[in-house]
């Protein structure tokens, strides 16, 4: 019998590093349609529609300003509090929302995943993209406020590191994607993790310099914890680039990038393993 050429072989396990990215590329139209679906379905039948994109970060910023700035009197590194908080909120929200949304991919789509095959990676990818669009809009809001301060006052000093912004966003996005995939894969079997994640994300925010500047942490033990958090250098760099105050180090950034890549790789591997049989357990 001659050598047979099969287009596909369905078998119990694939190789560990078979990420199936070519398959995802073939389904790229689907990714974009999912993004579109997310937007349309979120704001259908709401009066304010996409204006909610602005209201959310604005209200959060104002709340933080009142609670952390006025009531608790936390330092903002001599920066105008409004722009300080909104810079942190904008970039942190992107991470937190993407992570929470991707972490429930398997559970939320169990019915659909149980009926038809398409590369499951398209789903978290589409979430990352639709959150990126959301982030872009909120980033626009931040830029408006930021521009006001740049023009009207000399409290903030942006510098050339602004050029790093795309890299920062990419690291954020990939980190949340990787973590989200790990969680979504594990929650198919252990639902407990879903509970853990909701407040885990909240706790993580306090371990990231979102509502306080890194410089205000003097206790070396705490500082170590915060520096160990790969999100810290992203938020700090972002703030340093746009506002001109804070800490910046290539080493910390490189550390974040390496951790992100490792998490992402682990995420894809775990995700791909679980996607093959999760319908039996979910």
């Amino acid at each position: 019998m001659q050598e047979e050429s099969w287009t596909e072989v369905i078998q119990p396990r694939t190789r560990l590093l078979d990420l199936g990215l070519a398959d995802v590329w073939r389904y790229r139209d689907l990714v974009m349609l999912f993004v579109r679906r997310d937007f349309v379905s979120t704001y259908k039948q709401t009066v304010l529609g996409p204006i909610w994109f602005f209201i959310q970060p604005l209200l959060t910023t104002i709340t933080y300003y009142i609670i952390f700035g006025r009531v608790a009197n936390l330092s903002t590194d001599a920066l105008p509090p409004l722009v300080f908080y909104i810079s942190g909120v904008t970039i942190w929200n992107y991470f937190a929302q993407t992570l929470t949304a991707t972490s429930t991919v398997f559970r939320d789509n169990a019915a659909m995943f149980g009926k038809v095959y398409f590369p499951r990676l398209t789903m978290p990818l589409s979430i990352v993209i639709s959150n990126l669009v959301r982030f872009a809009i909120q980033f626009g809001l931040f830029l408006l406020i930021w521009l006001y301060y740049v023009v009207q006052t000399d409290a903030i000093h942006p510098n050339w590191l602004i050029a790093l912004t795309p890299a920062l966003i990419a690291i954020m996005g990939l980190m949340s994607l990787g973590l989200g995939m790990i969680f979504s894969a594990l929650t198919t079997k252990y639902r407990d993790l879903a509970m853990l994640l909701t407040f885990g994300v909240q706790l993580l925010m306090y371990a990231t310099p979102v509502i306080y500047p890194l410089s205000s942490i003097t206790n070396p033990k705490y500082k170590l914890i915060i520096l160990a958090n790969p999100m810290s250098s992203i938020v700090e760099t972002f703030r340093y680039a746009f506002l001109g105050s804070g800490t910046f180090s290539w080493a910390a950034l490189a550390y974040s990038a390496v951790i992100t890549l490792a998490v992402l790789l682990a995420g894809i591997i775990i995700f791909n393993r679980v996607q093959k049989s999760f319908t039996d357990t979910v």
Partner: protein
Amino acid sequence: MSDVAIKVENLGKLYRLGEVGTGTLSQDLNRWWAQVRGKEDPFAKIGEANDRTKKGSSDFVWSLKDVNFEVKKGEVLGIIGRNGAGKSTLLKILSKVTAPTTGKIKVDGRIASLLEVGTGFHPELTGRENIFLNGAILGMSKTEIRAKFDEIVDFSGVERYIDTPVKRYSSGMYVRLAFAVSAFLEPEILIVDEVLAVGDAEFQKKCLGRMKDVSVNDGRTVLFVSHNMAAVQQLCTTGILLKNGQLFYDGEVRKTLQEYFAMQKNVFESDLGSRTDRKGTGLIKFTSIEFYDSHNQPIYNIVTGQQLSLKLKFENNIQDKKDHNVRFDVIIMDENENMISMLTTFYQHNNTYIHSDSAYYTISIPKLPLSQGNYTLGIYCKIDEDEADWIMNAMEFTVEEGDFFNCGRVMPRGFGAVAIEHTIQLH
């Protein structure tokens, strides 16, 4: 290039029964430890064949085990079996929704599967948006969908509502639109599960027609799972029969169906001797009801319009040598226990007499007028003036759609409970 589209080798799927969540962590660790040491999965060994009627001792069950078969290109394969035989599991593995536990499937060509119509339909999106979304989920590219868009809308017949969110659709419109998208998939291999059981009779016919088109005219390979044996017979060229997760028969569709009906044999030959839910003096006692076709062969599937005969055997306890006046009734009831009709000696010209050496009686039906559905038979016997034997629910049987009027069309249940022979003339 070989002409095999799908080759299934030693396919097996192990399922865990009972609650998932208790003890899973320790089992997972056990399994992982076994894997690390290069040993076999400790839980795979204890799985047993899938027979849901028996209570097994193990928590693990082989929903499919050692299944081997091949599907040639252009073949239309019917997958049949009773509930729980493993059909759905096989389809799920073929459609890559879940992975097998053992074995592999080699595929040549792009697969699209329809385990359900309208997967991923979002109620807030319009018909148009859902066509694109659903099409993409099923593996079509945007360009492909755009090219077929008009055909899809046309086939579904919901053109007027195409820009309305589908949550405002009637359920019929929803299903039509959903099926229409699937109907225009163009993979080399199509896997279909019972989706034909949707919509009204007219639309079902349209769907069947489209399915036939796909297989006959386009020469695509189709795998079709259904409980509708008439549809399987009509569409498929070959069939496989699954039983308790194992391949029971593999061959030509007619033979496969025969095997299937033979497997169901007990349903069409009722053993009544041991029944206790009966009344009467017991002068005679029914022991069995059997169905035969026009050639006096036992039959296992009953179809509307079929010629058939019933043989009712009984135990004769008549001691004397006299002729006794006897009345035999067979009562036909539908699923809701409405009496549909009665087959009885009461309608014969002369009285019927029974002797001590009588052992069975037969009823012949030249053309069965019952439409598709489930029925119950009750049997009754009166000798002289006394009730001799009376079993209310002697047996249940199913009638399948058939071509009563010899017009090339089957009579669907939706067209009424019985068929009446008639002619129509225009003057």
